[in-house]
């Protein structure tokens, strides 16, 4: 069920500002692809075009193609709501629905899909929470508010919520940046397990994290502020970190940047 993503000649705009230019890349299924690069180079922006969340921002606009197993996400007859059900997303700051219980948070996506059967919902809630390595910590308090969990637990709750609808791709925008090292490790372990079933794209500022969890790494850069960001190179993670083709990548990896 994991799908591959092919991006070609993608330009991304905020109103009249071109934030990202000419991105072309292939994201492998059942693998983790990491986006790295300096702040403001457009990693989040590119990530959000992969499930059509970019256009939620007023003025957000895209030119080019994003193919999911050959199907253009931006074709005229494609419903963005359907795209987002196929391509799930986890945000930088954990954002469980604060008025919902833990159970309802996980079940939210299913309920949107019209699943009402209580037994089925309970089953998926348990499965997703187990999948997100959170079940043991919350199984006794499923009816407590999700906002009462720790930051790391909340983030895993958001991951459970995202995988509950069984997406084919999971996008994560700096999922560990608000977490302590132990929660971070828990989430990295989880990513390792999830990649057997999902195509995963993760944005991170943490080089070690990119090196630890990803199979491929994409390095984005921008020439100067106000200029559009660009994809410098995408390659296997070991190649990017040990022997990158581009000098800019090497400079960035080795910390000789800017």
């Amino acid at each position, binding site marked *: 069920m994991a799908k591959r993503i092919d991006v070609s000649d993608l330009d991304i705009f905020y109103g009249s500002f071109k934030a990202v230019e000419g991105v072309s890349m292939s994201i492998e299924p059942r693998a983790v692809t990491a986006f790295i690069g300096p702040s403001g180079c457009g990693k989040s922006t590119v990530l959000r075009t992969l*499930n059509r*969340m970019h256009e*939620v921002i*007023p003025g957000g606009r895209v030119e080019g193609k994003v193919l999911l197993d050959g199907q253009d996400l931006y074709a005229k007859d494609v419903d963005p*709501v*359907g795209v*987002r*059900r196929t391509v*799930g*997303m986890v*945000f930088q*700051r954990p*954002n*469980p*629905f*604060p*008025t*919902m219980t833990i159970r309802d948070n996980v079940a*939210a*996506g299913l309920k*949107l*899909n019209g699943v009402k059967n209580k037994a089925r919902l309970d089953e998926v809630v348990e499965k997703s929470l187990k999948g997100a390595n959170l079940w043991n910590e919350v199984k006794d308090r499923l009816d407590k*508010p999700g*906002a*009462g969990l720790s930051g790391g637990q909340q983030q895993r709750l*958001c991951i459970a*919520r*995202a995988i509950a*609808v069984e997406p084919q791709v999971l996008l994560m925008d700096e999922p560990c940046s608000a977490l302590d090292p132990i929660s971070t490790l828990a989430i990295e372990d989880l990513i390792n397990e999830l990649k057997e079933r999902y195509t995963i794209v993760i944005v991170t500022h943490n080089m070690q994290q990119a090196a630890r969890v990803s199979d491929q790494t994409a390095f984005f850069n921008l020439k100067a502020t106000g200029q559009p960001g660009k994809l410098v190179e995408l390659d296997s993670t070991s190649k990017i970190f040990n022997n990158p083709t581009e000098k800019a990548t090497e400079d960035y990896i080795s910390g000789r940047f800017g």
Partner: protein
Amino acid sequence: MTGVSIADKTPGSHGESPLSGDGASTGRLGDRLFGGAAIGAGAVVVGLVTLIGVFLLSQAIPSLMKNEANFLTSTEWSVGGDHPRFGILRLLWVTVLSSLLALTIAVPIGIAVALFITNYAPKWLSKPAASTVDLLAAVPSIIFGLWGLRVFGPRTEGIQNFLREKAGWFPLFKETTVGSFTTIFLAGLVLAIMILPIITALSREVFAQTPTTHKEGALALGATKWEMIRTAVLPFGKPGVISAAMLGLGRALGETVAVMILISSLAQGTDFSFSFFDGGETFASKIALGAGEFDTPQKTGAYIAAGLVLFILTFIVNAIARIVIERRKAFTE
């Protein structure tokens, strides 16, 4: 540090000892001063309210003692003479019925308008639409009263008659001695329009504050716009909408002039009915209409007693709103 000398003198010059602050106070002058001022202001307000309460009670009690009817269950209202008989049942019913009708109409419309302005309207439209609704709040209630009587009221005659005919078997819609459109029903409709701006404005504010992360969380799960509103915007805004509704209800309960103009008075001794199509007075309009009778302490006391009931009613409404909001807090923090 010129502030020191000024501040040092201020408490002294009023002959007060500087009040010690709460646990968070650093003991610095600014803290002590501000803490003292806050406690002082609080004390003044509490003191004033107590004084007013004591005054009102002292006025009302003698009249209540002389009252020969049951104050809570009687529908009579003759407050003069040696044998006063008065009760608030009818006032209470008219007040509550008209206000609840107003609320039932205004809350859904207010929420809908607020959602339209915050989530659906294109940018160029949302500002003017919001201002138009706010403008409604600036219309004086006497204007609403006159407009309701001259313009709006006659147009409701159709629906009022329709309900009287078709649903007249139901006590709320029963035919009464009031044949025209100047009924509790009309007052409720006009009150709805009057409280719509405040409900819309407050709801709009809370809806607009829904964190983007919640909205994006819902959208990223594949929610349609309406589903996003249901999962993120409405739950987030619920406490705000409740307080908006309660504020609106408070306004409707206390509205005087418009109601006075809009509802037909009933002749003494008219039978009590539960119907929307009856006339009568609300607490506020009764007191306003009775202003000419405030010539003896006994009569005045009776009206003050009615006023106190209105006060308690408003207080209960607010207390309920508080409890509802507090209950939800566990889920919003």
